[in-house]
């Protein structure tokens, strides 16, 4: 591998989280094409390795191959994260697609109070307050975070299914002309 690819490989190995392109570029400014080097590493790990370089959460990370999950977990060398509850997933889905979105809108769509669930998601770092709304009391508006992409294995938000692809089509509610 090229020297730059080796350097990036070392950095990605040392890091315990995905490293973004900017972070990788900052390692060796003017050392050449980081993207090409990442491609080289990825090719290198495509076969003959138990780990592979994965593009995830707007960055790159070495991850073990799926087929070894069970064995590794059985030996308790690493543990799968706890699964998110349906309530948490519902809330995440709404926030992912409607961000920035306030609590009231989440409550309204889910039909239940979502305060506790949202607090937990903030605590886990999966959502965060991104801005304040215009309306009464300037409500806090939430958005998803890089760890959200990370736990779902998504490159970026574009990786989420497009709403048109779902069997039930739904757009943002079009404002209905209220009869006067």
């Amino acid at each position: 591998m090229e020297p730059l690819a080796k350097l990036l490989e070392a950095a990605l190995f040392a890091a315990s989280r995905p490293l973004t392109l900017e972070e990788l570029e900052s390692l060796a400014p003017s050392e050449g094409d980081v993207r090409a080097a990442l491609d080289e590493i990825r090719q290198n790990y495509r076969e003959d390795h138990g780990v592979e370089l994965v593009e995830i959460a707007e960055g790159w990370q070495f991850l073990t191959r799926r087929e070894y999950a069970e064995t590794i977990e059985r030996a308790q060398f690493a543990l799968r994260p706890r699964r998110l509850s349906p309530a948490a997933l519902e809330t995440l889905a709404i926030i992912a697609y409607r961000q920035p979105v306030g609590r009231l809108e989440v409550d309204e769509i889910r039909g239940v109070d979502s305060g506790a669930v949202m607090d937990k998601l903030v605590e886990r770092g999966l959502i965060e307050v991104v801005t304040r709304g215009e309306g009464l009391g300037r409500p806090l508006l939430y958005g998803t975070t890089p760890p959200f992409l990370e736990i779902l294995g998504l490159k970026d938000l574009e990786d989420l299914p497009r709403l048109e692809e779902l069997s039930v089509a739904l757009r943002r509610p079009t404002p209905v002309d209220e009869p006067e």
Partner: protein
Amino acid sequence: MQTGPGFVVELEKFSGPLDLLLHLIKEDEVDITDLPIAKIADQFLAVIQDLGLNQAADYLEMAARLLRIKAQMLLPRRLGDDEWEDPRAELVRRLLEYQQIRELVEWLGHAADVRAERFGRGYEAPPPDAPPAPLQIDLNDLLGAAERVIALIPEPMLHRVVPRPLDVEGATAKINALLAEREQFGWSDIVGRGATIVDVLSAFIALLELAKRSVVTLSQPEPFGPMVVTRGTPREAA
């Protein structure tokens, strides 16, 4: 509670009233855009009769909404009246919206499961914060700050620090020595005549501690009589 066949529902399974409604609609295989509102409302009410109080508010609100729509549907309407708005429209919109969320939940749940089968490098503690930048102050700033702090103190607080005089270890050792010699002995064997208050307290705490660990058994044959210390039987005590 009366439920029809194939209609045994555990509310815990549902993440809210919309989820329950969707379930009922699916069970009945009815068209979501042309909801048989009376039937669905009745089924909904039947289910929530069995409801836990913590969730009641959300479900009751939906029940009220369903009943209101049911009532509105009964109101006569003139044929060909363009102004008439289907009272179910808002509910149907919300149900469709929610159904889509459920579909996304499936998708997200699956994505999370797949991701969970790949491990990154193990957890590492976050790096410590960088040390604070060296202070840039001169002597006057420091003295000023000190004066401000001192001014906040109403009056100097002085404490006399006394070394802890109790010697529980010593008393414990003494009791253990006695135990090695004798099966049973009295309080006065532990503390002699000239014992100070500190000696008495130390011995007392040591005894309580030993009694707690079942090393000794304490008894007092008569009210205000001398305490009798007996070698404990730990097995029985346990």
